[in-house]
């Protein structure tokens, strides 16, 4: 009987092609929108996540906060003057989830090569900096341990900086004058880094890198660093590492309220980003689901019109021996056909939309099977839910009244 109702339903839908298509449109758009939006959400999240992961491996940065006094007075000692090199060893010792701590001394200076000069950021650091940042050497080497130990005045250039100073020439072996604090220092270029782009705290490509010892003892003659970059043992241990760092710094600086330091972890950024995109996906998905619901109401509307319009047909069918269930299934099948066929077209439409959006936004196209199943299942559910009332109305018609209907 169901097969037969299906056949009758298909015939009557085919007989009203335009109307069938228009009432399907709501479902097509709804299902398509759900699939496309979920795909865009997942794709863009994957893209952003992979970009952030690309910035470095489980990096946690510890900064001093700027000194903040009360009532116009500067607080006694700035926390900047507590970020000593010794602390590096302490952190490694007291924070077991941190495997490496890299001190960074950041200064601004003018680099001069021939008649070109560039004001830029100079970073004093050690060999581990490149590794933790997933930062690769293009030509030459990064700063070595020997460079640091022997306070060699060597310099590694970011890719953009190298271009600015030397254009297409090979910078390796060239000498660069550095103007810092009214003094002039000469550096040998030993390496150029690959292009990397933004990272936590700035564009790496614009910077120059020198041994930490040179930056601290020769350029600034200071005992304190600008920040520490700590690397967590693994991404699972990142949040433990953050807590250990917080506890340690709070105790070390005698600063329970964390007023003197600031810790930013990569995972925190990742969490924020993914929670934002997740919320967006849920919100947009919800809107798409509402459009599906509205499509369902459209189907019910059409089915009600169709039942009224075909009252006489229902009467004839009943006179010829159709049972109430025959009529019920016929109309239920019609609405179910509308939504399931609309659902299939919608999947195709959503797929195409997702493809073009992923091309446009340059993220991987991800069609979650769950979203397809869910959207299609929801379409079927709508077909039954919104088709049931009109079908029952048709089935319950009195044959005598239905035959008399004009």
């Amino acid at each position, binding site marked *: *009987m169901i097969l037969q109702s299906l056949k*009758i339903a298909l*015939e009557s839908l085919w*007989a009203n092609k335009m109307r069938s298509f228009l009432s399907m449109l709501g479902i097509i758009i709804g299902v398509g929108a759900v699939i496309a939006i979920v795909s865009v959400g997942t794709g863009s999240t994957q893209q952003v996540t992979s970009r952030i992961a690309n910035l470095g491996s489980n990096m946690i940065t510890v900064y001093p906060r700027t000194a903040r006094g009360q009532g116009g007075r500067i607080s006694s000692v700035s926390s900047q003057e507590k970020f000593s090199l010794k602390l590096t060893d302490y952190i490694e010792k007291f924070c077991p989830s941190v495997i490496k701590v890299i001190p960074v001394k950041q200064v601004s200076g003018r680099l001069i090569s021939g008649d070109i000069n560039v004001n830029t950021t100079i970073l004093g650091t050690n060999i581990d900096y490149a590794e933790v940042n997933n930062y690769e050497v293009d030509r030459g080497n990064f700063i070595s341990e020997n460079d640091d130990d022997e306070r060699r005045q060597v310099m590694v250039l970011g890719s953009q900086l190298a271009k600015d100073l030397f254009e297409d020439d090979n910078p390796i072996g060239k000498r660069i004058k550095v103007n810092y604090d009214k003094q002039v220092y000469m550096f040998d270029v030993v390496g150029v880094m690959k292009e990397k782009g933004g990272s936590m705290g700035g564009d790496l490509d614009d910077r120059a890198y020198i041994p930490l010892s040179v930056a601290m003892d020769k350029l600034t003659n200071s005992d304190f660093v600008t920040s520490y970059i700590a690397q967590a043992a693994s991404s699972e241990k990142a949040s433990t590492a953050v807590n250990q760092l917080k506890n340690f710094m709070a105790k070390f600086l005698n600063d329970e309220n964390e007023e003197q330091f600031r810790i930013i972890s990569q995972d925190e950024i990742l969490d924020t980003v993914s929670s934002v995109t997740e919320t967006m996906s849920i919100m947009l998905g919800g809107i798409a689901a509402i459009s599906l619901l509205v499509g369902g109401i459209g189907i019910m509307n059409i089915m009600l019109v169709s039942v009224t319009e075909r009252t006489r047909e229902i*009467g004839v069918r*009943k006179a*010829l*021996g159709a*049972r109430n269930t025959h009529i019920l299934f016929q109309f239920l099948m019609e609405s179910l056909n509308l939504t399931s066929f609309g659902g299939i077209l919608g999947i195709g439409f959503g797929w195409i939309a997702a493809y073009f959006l992923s091309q446009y936004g340059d993220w991987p196209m991800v069609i979650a099977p769950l979203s397809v199943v869910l959207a299609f299942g929801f379409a079927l559910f709508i077909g039954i839910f919104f088709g049931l009332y009109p079908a029952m109305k048709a089935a319950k018609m009195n044959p005598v009244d239905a*035959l008399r209907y004009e």
Partner: protein
Amino acid sequence: MSKLILIEQLKKTYHVGKVNVEALRGVSFEINTGEFVSIMGPSGSGKSTLMHIIGCLDYPTGGKYFLSGQDVSKLNDNQLALFRNQKIGFVFQQFNLLPKTTILRNVELPLTYNDTHSKNKKRLAAQALEEVGLGNRLNHRPNEISGGEKQRVAIARALVNRPSIILADEPTGNLDSKTGQDIMKMIDKLHDKGNTIILVTHEAEIARYAQRVIHLKDGLIDRDEVIT
């Protein structure tokens, strides 16, 4: 001859708002297998109501109706549907064909509701259309054929299940007199082949094709006349 229809003190009262309308006020008659009976009367006489009850489309509110020995007033909706499908073949004034399907599919319709195998369905429907002289137009749609032809399709549809009764409700009402006569001749021929026919009409001329005319008036039988 066996009794096909036995009707005893049949009553039907409609409740229209607060008013009760007595459409049938106690009608009794019998119809034997193979008879050709006209039910005649002016509008409001109760002939449509009687036809609906005989056609198993409606329940009486009083009295008895036996069809092939079965008390119809005791059947439920589904059993009534089965009775309509197997015992009754309807021919309506307005033809009542499904407009967007071929005449073959229209004639197949009663067979779809009794699970006839689709292969047989087509054969039986084509055969019925052959009988009414439309064997070569199976794939035409109702809007492509004339009124007389439409009524012939309706007759084929009524015949296809080989029912006990062919119940024709004003079959010539929507046709010109020439075509109407053709249709009546066809119905007469069906009677000659042994079909039981009940014809509901208000036209005396049409009613006289039958062997017997039951005249209804105000919900009662006025006259039961045998035509010789």
